């Protein structure tokens, strides 16, 4: 090996160490694609159960019985859908990410992963609690925009600790969230685009950019 090749290799190694030690780079695009698919399945389940319409107010109306009481089965149905989507997305997300880490001979659980999760979950848990408060005050139409906005902010915050591309997805989710807060009638449509379509587009782009 000549001197120049050696120095070039040194620089490459320095760069790789800086990146590996400060950012969690094993996040797999396939995780995003699957999260998107689960979101679409969730939206489909809602449409199958209550009938399909673009008007979100129709679904929100189901939250109350004709007697004016809260419709418990509505909250249970949406609770189960939301929970299963989160669990499925996280499980598959972890599976693909650990597979990618193994392939690149990196640890899945290290300080960069910890840092990423902490910074992702602080805004995310805040958003979750805020949504619970909105439901408590019976402000259902604002729940969907809030999930998009807080998720977008969480991604934006996390982008400093993982592949920077996720920043763009975060900004798109925030814009979509604000739009859906104005046009609450299309809230669920925006939600399906934000969590379904955007995840699939982002995941596919990441997969082709980093994993092929």
């Amino acid at each position, binding site marked *: 090996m000549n001197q*120049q090749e050696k*120095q070039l290799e040194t*620089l490459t190694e320095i760069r790789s160490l*800086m990146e590996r030690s400060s950012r969690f780079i094993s996040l797999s695009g396939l995780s995003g694609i699957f999260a998107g698919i689960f979101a679409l399945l969730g939206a489909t389940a809602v449409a199958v159960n209550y009938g399909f319409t673009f008007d979100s107010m129709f679904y929100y109306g189901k939250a109350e019985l004709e007697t004016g009481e809260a419709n418990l089965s509505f909250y249970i149905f949406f609770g189960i859908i939301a929970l299963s989507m989160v669990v499925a997305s996280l499980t598959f997300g972890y599976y693909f990410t650990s597979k990618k880490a193994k392939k690149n001979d990196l*640890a899945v659980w*290290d*300080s960069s992963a910890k840092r990423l999760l902490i910074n992702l979950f602080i805004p995310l848990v805040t958003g979750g609690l805020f949504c619970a408060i909105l439901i408590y005050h019976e402000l259902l139409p604002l729940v969907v925009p809030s999930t998009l906005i807080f998720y977008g902010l969480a991604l934006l915050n996390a982008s400093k600790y993982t592949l920077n591309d996720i920043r763009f997805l975060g900004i798109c989710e925030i814009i979509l969230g604000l739009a859906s807060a104005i046009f609450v009638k299309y809230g669920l449509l925006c939600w399906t685009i934000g969590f379904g379509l955007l995840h699939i587009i982002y995941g596919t782009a990441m997969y082709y950019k980093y994993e092929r």
Partner: protein
Amino acid sequence: MKNYIDDLNKAFESRIRLGIMSILMVNDSVDFNTFKELLNITDGNLASHAAALEKLEFILIRKQFVGKKPNTTYAITKKGRKAFGEHLDGLEKLLKKRE
């Protein structure tokens, strides 16, 4: 003609020292085990290179106890940041000149 090799710091010639400095450039503080994992080296090897860098005042070593376990963390100093930055510039110039 300037000899760019003068800009290269002898202290950073070893692969491990380069690694330690690279990681500390982008992290506020890094612990012993994280270094071991990232650099794939043994305890003794890491300790001796870190001690050498500390002696040059390029890094700070802080030893603490978490419960009964010793926990050593490392951070870069101002002097270390400057020296490593110059070293990187030197490498870059050297490569550009030969192109």
